[in-house]
């Protein structure tokens, strides 16, 4: 066994430095992709169970214990479907759109500290800015699917989605800026490090509320799911998609929910920092705490989604521009005063 490790270490040290970095990045990406995919599969099942309980139903219970294998069955069904590309679509945009949306949902994890000593690339110490930047790719993907489908419902839906995402991105980023001001850094690792004494949900309650509300709009989930309002837009920008291509959109929605919840856990609940000390090494309990906090927000999101009705698009936009945006600016001004007074 030691000989094997020695051989591997020799092999790695004999490679040029650039290749080692590339190899490490590749390994890390595989771990992250597996982590996200497994969680997403679990979350789809969880959402069906939670929504069923909220609506006094039972939910999936036929395939396996508690219906655990329902998603496997659904996946096999989706994969087995015929791949239909409607004849009048813009072929390139239609094919690329699900991939853009799906790939974007993984990008947030590059800078997410999953545990102690989880190093983010040194080149990316702009953490928070990076997050704001990569989430904007989703808008482009939604536009591609809406336009590429050549369907008026899709176009209306993608324009709504883009308008909502762009508007709510502003108060959301401003809320994160207030957090970054308190922490004195844009890097998520430093923000977690700064929460060793007190979590930012206590220091920045206003920022948390703004971020939490905006996250529903960013994720296109009820009460802000105007982009896929079934009653008026059928299913929105993904109405022409079926089979595997639809699965990409579906999985991306849950991957984004996971990423957004993880982000809230990192920014406001201290990330991997434990609430109370447990026996055992922190490198083990850190990721466990992180996942637990993430699922706290996932469940909160599902609770809200299955409780509240959808609101109108004009109410949604007015709420953002006339209430959330001034509030987030006020929060930044207040935070600035406090930070100045403390220095």
């Amino acid at each position: 066994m030691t000989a094997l490790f020695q051989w591997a270490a020799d092999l790695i040290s004999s490679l040029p430095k650039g290749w080692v970095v590339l190899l490490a990045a590749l390994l890390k990406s595989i771990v992250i992709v597996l982590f996200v995919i497994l969680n997403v599969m679990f979350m789809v099942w969880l959402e069906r169970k939670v929504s069923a309980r909220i609506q006094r139903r039972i939910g999936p219970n036929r395939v396996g214990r508690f219906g655990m294998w329902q998603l496997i069955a659904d996946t096999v069904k989706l994969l087995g479907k015929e791949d239909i590309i409607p004849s009048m679509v813009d072929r390139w945009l239609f094919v690329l759109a699900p991939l853009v949306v799906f790939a974007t949902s993984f990008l947030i994890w590059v800078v997410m500290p999953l545990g102690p000593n989880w190093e983010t690339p040194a080149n990316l110490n702009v953490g928070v800015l990076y997050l704001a930047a990569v989430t904007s790719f989703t808008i482009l993907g939604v536009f591609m699917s809406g336009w590429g489908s050549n369907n008026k419902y899709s176009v209306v839906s993608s324009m709504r989605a883009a308008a909502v995402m762009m508007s709510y991105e502003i108060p959301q980023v401003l809320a994160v800026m207030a957090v970054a001001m308190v922490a004195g850094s844009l890097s998520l690792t430093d923000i977690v490090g700064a929460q060793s004494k007190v979590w930012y949900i206590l220091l920045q309650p206003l920022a948390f509320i703004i971020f939490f509300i905006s996250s529903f709009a960013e994720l296109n989930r009820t009460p802000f799911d105007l982009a896929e309002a079934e009653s008026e837009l059928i299913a929105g920008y993904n109405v022409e998609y079926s089979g595997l291509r639809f699965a990409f959109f579906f999985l991306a929605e849950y991957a984004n929910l996971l990423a957004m919840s993880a982000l809230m856990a990192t920014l406001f609940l201290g990330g991997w920092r434990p609430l109370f000390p447990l026996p055992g090494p922190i490198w083990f309990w850190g990721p466990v705490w992180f996942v637990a906090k993430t699922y706290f927000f996932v469940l909160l999101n599902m609770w809200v989604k299955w409780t509240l009705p959808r609101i109108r698009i004009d109410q949604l936009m007015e709420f953002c521009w006339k209430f959330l945006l001034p509030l987030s600016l006020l929060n930044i001004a207040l935070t600035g005063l406090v930070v100045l007074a403390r220095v």
Partner: protein
Amino acid sequence: MSVQMGFFIALAAITLWSGYMVVAARLITHAAFYMALSFVSVAGIFILLNAEFLAAAQVLIYAGAVATIIIFAIMLSNVREIRSDADCPPGIIQRLSLNLRSERLGILPVVVGVIFGLAMAYVYLKAGWTTNAQPAFTNTTASIGQELFTTYAVPFEVASLLLLVAMVGAIILTIKEGK
């Protein structure tokens, strides 16, 4: 050839190709998406240069805001195709040769490109930049913030005022008469 060089060549090729496709695409929507692609690959080049703040700002502002707003404008307008079928024969070779012979897609861009390249080469030779591999700052974001709020505070504020004026102007233009 190092890994970095490989990435640089790939990103530069994508930038050049997408930049050309912005003017050569048949559909105006495709031109907008090619523009977004070129913005993103330029951001990749910024990362290779250790300018991570510039890269994030590039994606946030250009790909996230500018390209999206342009696509919005295209969707709200009636323009769809900017080339007729005769301009776009099937087959990449035929299309490329036709494009290169045409005035707007071939000769003019080449002339403009050569002039711009010469100007950039002149600037490069005149400036005499040192080409040491070490980045000058370890934390570029902090130094950019320091400079923006001290040395360049006035230009920064003037730029934001200009944007505010443009925004107010746009809102005024959309107000309908008699409402």
